[in-house]
């Protein structure tokens, strides 16, 4: 059957267009009940064995959901033992239209057989399709469609019971009149068996506890007013960013304005939450102020407003108009789009009753008021909460509890928090993914041997950090005539991961393996990462080889790529390889091979540096874990060996060679990696720091910078050069993947390595980009076939965007994990350590402690304390106290302890030990008597120290690029 849908659309230029579309009505759509004989059999998860138990209805029933229930209460639906749910296509379309994330979540529910969901395509079914009436609103029409489907089901299956769950009271009333049983989800869930946890998860969007409650916030303008205001230029749209230090302050970045707009106080912020797209109104220029310098923390209880009023007063009193720091000031008048998500955090202690306050770990998010019946239990837990609404009368946004992650302070809980906060996919691999794995025992067939070059006789070895189980690269070098033949052999992961399979899509979505201190979240299942792909010593493995003929001055004579079978003779650690090279008595093939490689690597490195490649530094530490208790035993700086640099050089060389090859064969869709040149303003802190030392840092080109850094040496401070390099590292931008067809050739440049072309080829076990590159290269050398997505540049670019995001998040997660373990290690410890001043600030010193790779703030004066014995010289960047002058990069001795007052935000407290300043410094630990307890300099009112922001948790230094 056939009908048309007509609708009129306005085009951008203001013409009215009439669109007519076909709409087919079918007679082959099934009701989804296996027992039904009237309909064609169809795959359906509806099951007569599942019973929905709700004491409001003393019979078994099937449930039909309205759109609003799905949009608001998905958390409950996910959790509750509610099954046998019929999702109407009308509802599905509406959900998709309103929120894509919720639609995706809904689909995982629908696809889960144990949930017993069924999609009924009511809008194409001959008996349930109804036409929209003239002048009927879309909402009313959809409601009518839903009711029509309900009554059809009742008629079609007279022996079954159906209940419509909807939050729309009108819809409910009409449904009841039409003889349909309709119910709101609130009473439904309340009357379910075992509802205690479920009830907490109900979204509180529509609850009005007290209609007379005083409004605490000004109202928001409606959408029309906002849009008119923006159009007329009286209002500005932008993204709201909350201050982390002052809960009554925030900024709105407006594209049209140069400066961010400062908003302050309850009325100024007006319920905006970090990340929201808001609309601001600017004050008169005479009312503009400079950002406050005080730190305010929200210390309020559930309904208490006194605290906030007093703090607003404090804010007003300290308001200043410092010249040069005055910012455009305004207030938020409306919200265009909320960017609320799920937040990790803990409950605020000391509150009784069902209403509790949730304190998010992210300090830019306000506390959230939730209703729970299990507060005592939740107080011991890290939990996830989401925001539902923020009514005018409520001091805090209303939200609901989603789930508990585990006990506060547990390693596993904290790992979970780190993974969630960084959006790292870390669930178990699904059955579907695992089914793509090769069956064991895995054997090499004759067919395989025929297709690959047999290199099993070559003396190949791998060199990695100790304990490495995912070995993705191995090397060899041998004499061929006058020249040398060098081979880099990379695990042939793309042989096992075929494009488009569930395994491929999962790896693509994960993008990278994430390394936490005591946990590795694999990109591909263990069987591949630690076994079949890992180039273990003494085992036959598939590899993708890049082989050069090189003369003894490290000039490449020719390059070739092919798939191969190798048998690594030995898997070495950096240290073992170093010892083999150094041990003159060893003269076997492996030792010779390593010596040649080392010799070539030195030439390659020298040449690279001469071309302007940068040597950057960031303190890298390794945390030694107790294997039983999983507690950190010690933290040590990673040892450096020449062999690390040796392996790195050949990996770089392989990556560059491969990049050239794939770009040549796939000019549009090669997956490359670029490192953009940083804007010169990024270097300001570095240049400034150099100037105070009397050093000129040139930044005109990478080469100039590299040279300036090399020359910046002062014999009296051997660590100075490293610190400058650390500063330089912070001026850099992130390197990113991209599809070659999306950018101009000039933009392919890799700044850090100073090469025009670069890609990632050498770590396919733990990076998805390398898998794409392997596939392209395989096509290039005729070892594999292309497939559609591989040649689609926009698709490749889309994948690259995801990889860039995942990489960044993996890096942050790794750092967060080190930070957590460093904290754990220092709990209850007190230690004097050698440190260096990285920056001199107005009231503090930023100190780097290389031994632990951490950076923390040494406060010279407390906020509000007038007795500051230090004198700040902005010009020279120094702090003077009596006859001691502290410069940037000066070595200092500091006492290190951990302040755990705030269990979510523990931080390091530093005290100066030497140089000794009367009345400020503390005596060294050895001389200290018992009365000198570490004063807990209540970190509460202090700025974030950004502890060990630069810690890295990388597998090995060769991955830096």
């Amino acid at each position, binding site marked *: 059957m*056939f009908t*048309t849908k007509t609708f009129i659309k306005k085009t951008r230029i203001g*013409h009215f*267009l*009439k*669109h*007519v*579309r*076909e*709409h*087919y*009505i*079918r007679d082959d759509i099934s009701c989804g009940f296996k027992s039904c004989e009237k309909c064609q059999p169809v795959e359906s998860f509806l099951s007569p064995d599942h019973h929905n138990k709700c004491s409001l209805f003393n019979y078994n029933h099937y449930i039909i959901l309205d759109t609003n229930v799905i949009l608001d209460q998905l958390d409950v639906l996910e959790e509750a033992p509610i099954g046998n749910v019929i999702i109407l*296509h009308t509802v599905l379309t509406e959900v*998709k239209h309103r929120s*894509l994330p919720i*639609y*995706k979540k809904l*689909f995982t529910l*629908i696809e889960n057989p144990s949930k017993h969901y069924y*999609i009924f*395509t009511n*809008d*194409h079914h001959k008996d349930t399709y109804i036409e929209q009436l003239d002048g009927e609103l879309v909402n009313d029409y959809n409601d009518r469609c839903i009711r029509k489907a309900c009554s059809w089901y009742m008629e079609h299956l007279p022996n079954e019971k159906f209940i419509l769950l909807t939050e729309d009271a009108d819809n409910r009333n009409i449904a009841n009149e039409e003889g349909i049983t309709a119910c709101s989800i609130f009473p439904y869930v309340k009357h379910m068996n075992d509802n205690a946890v479920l009830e907490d998860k109900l979204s509180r969007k529509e609850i009005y506890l007290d209609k007379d409650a005083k409004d605490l916030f000004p109202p928001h303008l409606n959408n029309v007013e906002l849009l008119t205001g923006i159009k007329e230029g009286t209002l500005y749209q932008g993204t709201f960013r909350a201050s982390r230090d002052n809960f009554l302050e925030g900024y709105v970045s407006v594209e049209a304005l140069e400066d961010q707009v400062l908003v302050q106080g309850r009325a100024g912020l007006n319920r905006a939450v970090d990340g929201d797209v808001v609309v601001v109104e600017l004050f008169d220029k005479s009312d503009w102020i400079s950002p406050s310098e005080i730190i305010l923390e929200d210390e309020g209880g559930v309904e208490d407003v006194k605290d906030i009023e007093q703090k607003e007063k404090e804010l007003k009193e300290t308001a200043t108009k410092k010249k040069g720091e005055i910012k455009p000031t305004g207030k938020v008048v409306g919200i265009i789009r909320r960017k609320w998500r799920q937040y990790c955090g803990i409950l605020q202690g000391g509150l009784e009753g069902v209403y509790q306050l949730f304190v998010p770990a992210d300090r830019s998010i306000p506390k959230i008021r939730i209703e729970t019946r299990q507060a005592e239990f939740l107080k011991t837990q890290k939990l996830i909460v989401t925001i539902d609404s923020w009514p005018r009368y409520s001091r805090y946004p209303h939200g609901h509890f989603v789930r508990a992650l585990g006990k506060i302070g547990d390693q596993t809980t904290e790992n979970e928090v780190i993974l969630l906060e960084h959006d790292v996919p870390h669930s178990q691999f699904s059955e579907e993914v695992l089914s793509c794995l090769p069956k064991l025992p895995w054997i090499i067939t004759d067919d395989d041997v025929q297709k690959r070059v047999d290199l099993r006789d070559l003396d190949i070895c791998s060199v990695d950090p100790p304990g490495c189980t995912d070995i993705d690269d191995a090397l060899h070098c041998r004499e061929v005539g006058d020249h040398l033949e060098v081979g880099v052999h990379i695990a042939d992961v793309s042989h096992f991961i075929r494009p488009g399979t569930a395994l491929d899509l999962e790896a693509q979505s994960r993008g990278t393996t994430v390394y936490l201190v005591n946990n590795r979240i694999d990109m591909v299942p263990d069987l591949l990462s630690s076994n079949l792909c890992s180039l273990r010593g003494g085992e036959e493995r598939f590899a993708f080889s890049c082989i050069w003929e090189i003369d003894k001055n490290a000039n490449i004579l020719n390059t070739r790529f092919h798939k191969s079978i190798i048998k690594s003779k030995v898997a070495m650690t950096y240290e073992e390889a170093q010892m083999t090279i150094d041990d003159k008595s060893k003269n076997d093939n492996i030792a010779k091979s390593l010596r040649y490689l080392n010799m070539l690597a030195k030439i390659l490195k020298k040449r690279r540096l001469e071309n302007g490649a940068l040597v950057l530094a960031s303190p890298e530490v390794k945390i030694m874990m107790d294997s039983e208790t999983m507690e950190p035993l010690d933290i040590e700086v990673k040892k450096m060996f020449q062999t690390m640099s040796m392996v790195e050089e050949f990996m770089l060389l392989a990556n560059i060679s491969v990049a050239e090859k794939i770009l040549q064969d796939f000019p549009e869709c090669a997956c490359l990696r670029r490192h953009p040149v940083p804007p010169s303003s990024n270097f300001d802190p570095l240049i400034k720091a150099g100037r105070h030392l009397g050093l000129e840092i040139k930044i005109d080109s990478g080469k100039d910078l590299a040279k300036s850094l090399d020359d910046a040496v002062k014999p009296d401070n051997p660590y100075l050069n490293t610190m400058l390099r650390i500063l330089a590292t912070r001026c850099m931008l992130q390197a990113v993947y991209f599809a070659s067809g999306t950018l101009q050739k000039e933009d392919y440049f890799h700044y850090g390595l100073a090469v025009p072309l670069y890609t990632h080829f050498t770590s396919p076990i733990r990076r998805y980009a390398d898998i794409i590159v392997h596939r392209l290269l395989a096509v290039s050398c005729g070892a594999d*076939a*292309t*497939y*559609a*997505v591989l*040649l689609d540049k926009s698709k490749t670019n889309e994948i690259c965007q995801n990889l860039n995001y995942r990489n960044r998040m993996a890096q942050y997660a790794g750092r967060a994990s080190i930070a957590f373990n460093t904290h754990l290690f220092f709990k209850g410890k007190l230690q004097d350590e050698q440190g260096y001043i990285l920056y001199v600030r107005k009231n503090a010193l930023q100190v780097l402690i290389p031994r632990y790779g951490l950076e923390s703030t040494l406060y010279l004066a407390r906020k509000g304390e007038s007795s500051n014995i230090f004198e700040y010289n902005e010009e020279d960047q120094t702090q003077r106290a009596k006859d001691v002058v502290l410069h940037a990069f000066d070595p200092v001795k500091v006492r290190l302890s951990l302040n755990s007052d705030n269990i979510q935000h523990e931080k390091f407290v530093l005290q100066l030990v030497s140089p000794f300043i009367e009345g400020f410094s503390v005596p060294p630990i050895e001389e200290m008597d018992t009365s000198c307890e570490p004063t807990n300099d209540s970190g509460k009112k202090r700025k974030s120290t950004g502890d060990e922001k630069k810690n890295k948790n990388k597998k090995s230094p060769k991955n830096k690029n």
Partner: protein
Amino acid sequence: MSKKELLSKIGLRLDGRRAHELRRIRCKLGVFTEPDGSAYMEQGLTKVLAAVYGPHQVRGSKSKAHHDNCLINCQFSMAVFSTTDRKKRPRGDRKSTELSMHLQQALESVIKTELYPWSQIDVYVEVLHADGGIYPTCVNAATLALIDAGIPIKEYVCACTASLANNDVPMVDISHQEEVMGGPTLTIAALPMSGKIVLMEMSQRFHLDHLDKVMNKALQGCKDIRQILDAAVRLHVRDIGSATGWALTSYNE
């Protein structure tokens, strides 16, 4: 999962069809009396009129005439009201010229042109409403008009489009909405009985991996269309026949 989903998880397309289903086809032969043959064809909302004149003597320059076969002259046009945006010129633009030539190519493959040396057949098609798959509908309409005109043809020439839903599932007879949202569209004109393809066109590049299955889908579409056209022709013949009385013998069900 993007917002673009040509085939929903339950296997229905945006307009409610399944991947292998054609749009509704309605057609009628002999809609005009003036031309020698005519037909009206609807595929979904795409509506086309076709008229055939001839065979007759070559008009205009005699030099165009062929000594061993007849000249097929096709003219394609689109009514100004046929698309959502008003068209400025009904014919003569590049797209129309191209479609005219493609139509000619398809028809030349079936008309027994050798029967009419020194003569010409004119085929005019006009799109009344365009909603995707203009060319196939024109070919199908022209085939019917030729039959109505009584011009001998080897077999039906049918045309159909196919594309790929969600980068995986081939689907047939693409609507305008699907054309706009989806990837490349493949158009073929074929002789469904012998399985010969006389014209094939792609709107964008297809990956080789997909080409076979999409082409097979389009070919299947042509076969399905042939059956519908065939039924329409038989019905038409019966109607005319019953008016004159002679058809009753063969269709006395």
